[in-house]
């Protein structure tokens, strides 16, 4: 697709702009990790598409260096899929906040998982609506007091990784933005995975979420292992048990290799429709002979 270049792609190259998140925001760690992962994979910026949602998280769209698409709130997933189908040769990585992914974007999430396109979807989960100044989100702790829940939230939180598992994502992991190196490892594997990869990343909001701080997370984070040959339901059960102990499981929970959506629906993923010569073919008119 492009001339070979010998230039080594450093993490720095994937940064278009100095980010403007609040000092200490967890999203810095995610940005650092994704840059390292992209560098490790030597993905060329012009062959990479980032697709981000609306939120503090979504601002990564303005900061990352590649073809970068900032969608509407909650619409990361359909836009990603549209891009991927039009040109399966591109690497497509999505970024959403917890509200973007699990409130307004929830339906797309479930449906994307059952399709299994080769996309990587990163949720920058701060358990709060950051950009709108601190309302509770679908992942907020129960009872959390926020601008929109002055008497405490009354809803059961969603566990992003559990939803991904139940819905059928073929790669499910959770990372912590306080550990960019570890996160990078997860990202590398998620991007390499052929299928729908979901990485739920804990990413503290230091401005509006005074409950779920770095310390709060550090005390609870627990790497889980030994899930390799377990079924989705067994893994869910296991994760629930860990959570019941007040811990937060992190790591790669699930990985399964199966056909991707593109492979299922495209005649030839190697010849993207985006690059097709569109001159009408004579044979098209044969298709309407039946209406004679």
């Amino acid at each position, binding site marked *: 697709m492009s001339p070979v270049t010998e230039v080594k792609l450093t993490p720095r190259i994937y940064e278009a702009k100095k980010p403007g998140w609040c000092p200490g925001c967890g999203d810095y760690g995610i940005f650092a990790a994704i840059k390292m992962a992209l560098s490790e994979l030597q993905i060329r910026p012009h062959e990479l598409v980032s697709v981000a949602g609306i939120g503090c998280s979504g601002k990564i769209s303005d900061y990352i260096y590649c073809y970068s698409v900032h969608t509407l709130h909650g619409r990361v997933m359909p*836009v990603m899929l549209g891009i991927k189908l039009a040109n399966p040769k591109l690497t497509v990585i999505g970024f959403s906040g917890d509200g973007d992914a699990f409130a307004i974007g929830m339906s797309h999430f479930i449906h994307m998982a059952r399709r299994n396109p080769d996309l990587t979807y990163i949720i920058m989960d701060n358990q709060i609506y950051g950009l709108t100044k601190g309302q509770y989100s679908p992942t907020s702790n129960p009872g959390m007091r926020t601008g929109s829940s002055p008497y405490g939230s009354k809803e059961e939180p969603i566990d992003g990784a559990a939803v991904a598992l139940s819905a059928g994502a073929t790669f499910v992991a959770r990372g912590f933005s306080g550990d960019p190196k570890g996160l990078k490892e997860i990202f590398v594997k998620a991007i390499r995975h052929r299928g729908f990869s979901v990485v739920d990343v804990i990413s503290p909001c230091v401005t509006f979420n005074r409950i779920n701080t770095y310390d709060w997370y550090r005390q609870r984070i627990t790497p889980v292992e030994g899930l390799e040959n377990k079924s989705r339901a067994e893994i869910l059960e296991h994760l629930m048990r860990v959570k019941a102990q007040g811990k937060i499981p992190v790591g790669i929970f699930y990985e399964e290799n199966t056909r991707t959506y593109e492979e299922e629906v495209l005649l030839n993923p190697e010849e993207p429709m985006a690059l097709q010569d569109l001159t009408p073919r004579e044979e098209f008119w044969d298709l309407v002979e039946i209406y004679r």
Partner: protein
Amino acid sequence: MKVNDIAVRIGGQAGDGALTTGDTLALVLHRMGLYVITFKDFPSQIRGIHTNYTIRASAKPVQARPDTLDVLMAFDHDSIERHLHEMAPGGYIIYESSRGELKEIPRDDLVVINVPLRKIAQEVAGREVMKNTVALGVLAAFTGLDRQVMEDILKERFLKRKGMAVVEANLKAFDAGYDFYQQAGLPTDHLKLQRNGEPKGYLMIGNEAIAFGALVAGCRFYAGYPITPASEIMEWLAKFLPKYNGVVVQAEDEIASINLAAGAALAGARAMTATSGPGLSLMTEGLGYIATIEAPVVLVNTTRSGPSTGMPTKTEQSDIFHSVFGGHGDFPRIVLSPKDAQEAYLLTIEAFNLAEEFQLPVIFFVDQFLAQNKYTVPDLPREAAQVRRGELLDPTKSVNPDDPEATFPRYRVTESGVSPRTIPGTPGGIHWVTGLEHTEYGHVSTYAKNRVEQMNKRFRKLETARPRLPKPVVYGDPKAERVLIVTGSTTGPALEAMEQADGAFFVVQVRTLWPFDVNDLKAYTENKAVYVAEVDYQGQLAFLVEHHLGRKVHRVVKYNGRPFRPSEIKEALLS
């Protein structure tokens, strides 16, 4: 005697077979070399509610539902009650009398034949469903409907899939109907159908013409969610796009659909979605997004009766306001409106070209009547099928040969408003895309000056596009004192009304609903009485015309879910 000019209505309950009978009859007439148009009036329920199907055929082109009916095939008594008053003097009623005969009716100018259609079908062909074929046989007996054509069609349909026995059973049913009428000794001298040379082109519904138009226009990506009356577009493309490495995604809803299309368009595919009112409303946010990121997407809206879920299978043109004004904020768009299936094909191709040349959403405004009724389409010309991709730069060539990872001013402020465009994968073409206000490179910005430049640039595209947009078409003699302005499928009845009125008015068909070009209309409306006819309540087209002409017009509106009869328009203009 009326020769080769007929209007037949078939009425019954949903599930009674009125739709399939109508389709067959339409095809027979089309194959006999007549021009055909249909009018399906069916419920949004799979069974049990009254349905009817009207076929009009003539040796000259037909463009509207008929004013009156020559033949009514009634599968139940309800159909008599509903449609009797529409019968033309001297017309025929074929009544399915298996469950009782039709006795007294308050019209003595009609030929009524009671035929136990079901019974005959059962007797001669062993299956009640063939009652429809029996009815066509009856029709043939007093019109001369061509048995050979019927036979050809039956063979095409059944020979391969079901074998000769089925064909023969059908022919038997046909002949039984024919004989039944003949034996009744009723008149056969009022209506006459005869071969009129070769078929006059294709017989297809608007949606099929649109789907085909999309394919030849280079559309390879379709995302949609099932909805009446748009679904045929998805189903057609689902069959054929995959053969050309395209894809149809049935999305989880319309919001996903339009965002899928946005993604595919951004990545360089020609992308489309189709829907109807409820879906259009849901797509509103996506529409503004597409305009802001300057992606080329074609959105077909097949308008049905609103508001809300409304009357899903009935026609209306009441989505003009939303197509033209819907969506928060100020953004450019183009709205095209074809008048019949053939023009739907032509303008679909244009829609894709304009979308890509001007990098904006094109709404294709198609009312349900046009979307779902059959038309004789004289031609689907190949020379119309030209693909113009505008400022899209070749993705295989580097925009910056020194540095494949260089950035590119995707939203460059140009005189035309159109900026050169790269797609992901293009070396040297990197840029940012966002629904937030942005700089030439697509980076977020709220600077006042940049904002104003980008707003101006986006809207400038409409000015650049203006001379390139489909102009209104004028029919009749512009010297007449009255002018009738219409759009979409209302053009058909307007033209027939004009003929009926012997040139008491002329007709201007608006094909570009937005940007609305008043200059195109000024010349035709000065010192004239201006009428606007449309199928909606508020007079949405009239509102646009009024605004642009700066004066009030006569509004001719209809909003009971049915399209105009020509005579209704004529009367409204002449009274």
